[in-house]
């Protein structure tokens, strides 16, 4: 972006930061497109779950096995074909969407929670606290995350909750670093300094003054973290450490279909494509959000 615009619309004179970000976001066609896609995924996932809770399965029950219909290619009855136990892949994909999105959201929530707390403390208090916490972050990076996941899954059982928590536990370092650097900068700002002089408590200052200003980058990290979590879960399922059968996730449809790859391409293409498009949408949306938050107009 070269130079600054000379004209600015009169109505933007007293825009709140949030409104400004939103405006810029909506004016970006890619951002809008990806947002629509995300909405689409969320809605399909939500509707599918609601339908199945009330006992209706559309188009089929994802766990209904029918050996006579094994490994059929896509057709008008089975839009995405059937898997090795005769289950309809399309239905499994729909249910998998809800799992993948849940994993993304909850894992990010966990990692955000931990990351924000640690980053805030390190960034606000600085000094020794900061050094120790940052070394701890470094240490975590050295950890064999694969063991952690394996151990947790082995000890506590491979339930969806455990997997999500573990993914959250190993991904908070990025958020922590980001929050810390934001806090380090914002700590030196005028109103924080004056708040301090006025004797306001740390907690108060952090939540009332610093956090709202750091909100944008944190939100961006969150959005960008969702596809990471989805990809992690898919990778875990792929290696065999994911959710239990008969539960369908995009990752384990690919994992189950891996053996038949050369002959049953639909077991790999559709879930892979879905993971890819979902991740892409989140990345593009997150990136557009970041641009909207950072740009100077």
């Amino acid at each position, binding site marked *: 972006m070269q130079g600054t615009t000379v004209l600015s619309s009169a109505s933007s004179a007293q825009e709140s930061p949030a409104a400004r970000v939103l405006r810029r976001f909506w004016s970006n066609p890619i951002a809008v497109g990806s947002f629509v896609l995300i909405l689409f995924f969320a809605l399909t996932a939500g509707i599918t779950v609601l339908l199945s809770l009330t006992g209706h399965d559309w188009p089929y029950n994802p766990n209904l096995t029918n050996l006579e219909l094994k490994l059929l290619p896509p057709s008008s009855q089975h839009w995405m074909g059937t898997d090795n136990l005769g289950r309809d892949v399309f239905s499994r994909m729909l249910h998998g969407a809800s799992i993948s999105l849940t994993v993304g959201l909850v894992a990010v929530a966990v990692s955000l929670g931990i990351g924000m707390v640690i980053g805030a403390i390190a960034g606000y208090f600085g000094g020794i606290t900061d050094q120790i916490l940052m070394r701890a972050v470094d240490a975590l990076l050295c950890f064999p995350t694969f063991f952690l996941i394996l151990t947790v899954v082995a000890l506590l059982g491979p339930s969806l909750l455990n997997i999500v928590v573990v993914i959250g536990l190993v991904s908070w370092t990025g958020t922590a670093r980001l929050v810390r650097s934001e806090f380090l900068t914002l700590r030196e700002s005028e109103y924080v300094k004056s708040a301090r002089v006025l004797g306001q408590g740390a907690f108060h200052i952090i939540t009332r003054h610093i956090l709202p200003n750091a909100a944008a980058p944190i939100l961006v990290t969150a959005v960008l973290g969702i596809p990471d979590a989805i990809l992690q879960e898919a990778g875990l399922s792929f290696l065999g450490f994911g959710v239990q059968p008969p539960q369908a996730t995009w990752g384990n449809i690919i994992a189950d279909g891996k053996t038949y790859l050369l002959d049953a391409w639909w077991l790999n293409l559709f879930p892979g494509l879905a993971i*890819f498009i979902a991740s*892409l949408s989140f990345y593009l949306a997150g990136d557009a959000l970041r641009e909207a938050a950072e740009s100077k107009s």
Partner: protein
Amino acid sequence: MISFVIRRLVLSVVLLFIISIISFFIVTLTPGSPYPWGELNPKISPEVKANFRKKFHLDRPLHEQYGLIMRDLFSGNLRSIKDDRPVMSRILERLPATVALNLTSIVISLSFGTLLGVFAARYAGTWKDGAGSFIAFLFIALPGFWITYVVVVALVKGFGVPILGTHSYGIEFPNALASGLDTLWHLLLPATILALGGIASQSRYIRASMIESLREDYIRTARSKGLYEDVILLKHALRNSVRPIIAGIGMVLPALIGGAVVIETIFAYPGMGRLGYEAVLERDYPTLVALNFVVAALVLLGNLVSDLLSAAVDPRVRLE
């Protein structure tokens, strides 16, 4: 400066041991036994198992086991439970292939990433930039295992080219060139797939920092002097962006020996990733402890080197 280095080294060593202890306990806590034979093997009697346990100190309490493993590690006697060979040999024999793969992958990401990033920065704000970003995110969002399979299946079904391992088998190569190209092929293919994510993040990074530089005053001065856009772009803006990359070189050390399990498994490429993965599945504690230790040491060392290089390259950075 010296005191900084010494302080950091001491801190790192302490940290190294803490990490090593914690990861040892995590690994041994995981249920499962390191017997090299199948557990439900009718031929193994309890005496054989007891002997095995004694041999690898598995009958001692955990803290003793850790101590013994560390002692063996530093005296060079640490043996793997899987095949009773020195752990260091196992790690070292995988090292060349891994380093080759990672180095190639880094070269690919840096070169293509920079190119893409410069391109995007040059045309920032236009559709070309948007396309560049799109491609970058495309690469990041591709699930590694999926795209690997797609590529592999396409190559095998479409062209029938051998793709596994480090070179093709059972073939009489007509000359050294053919043999060299064959090895190169087996190296480039997995390296390229590994590099995809790196290309994307590198290009995003270069683009962002170049755009940042392009806004600086001295650029405007250069422009007003009438210098060609190209020169401005490459000589000035890019150079500034390169500084942090140099600082990032420190982190190359751990990256060089890291491993990508899925790609190595699919390509049957003998790398460190598979070593670690298999060691976990086999509960090969000595190998795991040694691997962790080496990786952690390299990460900490890499961090130190990064910080030092940052300070050397950028006068604004101060070492605390």
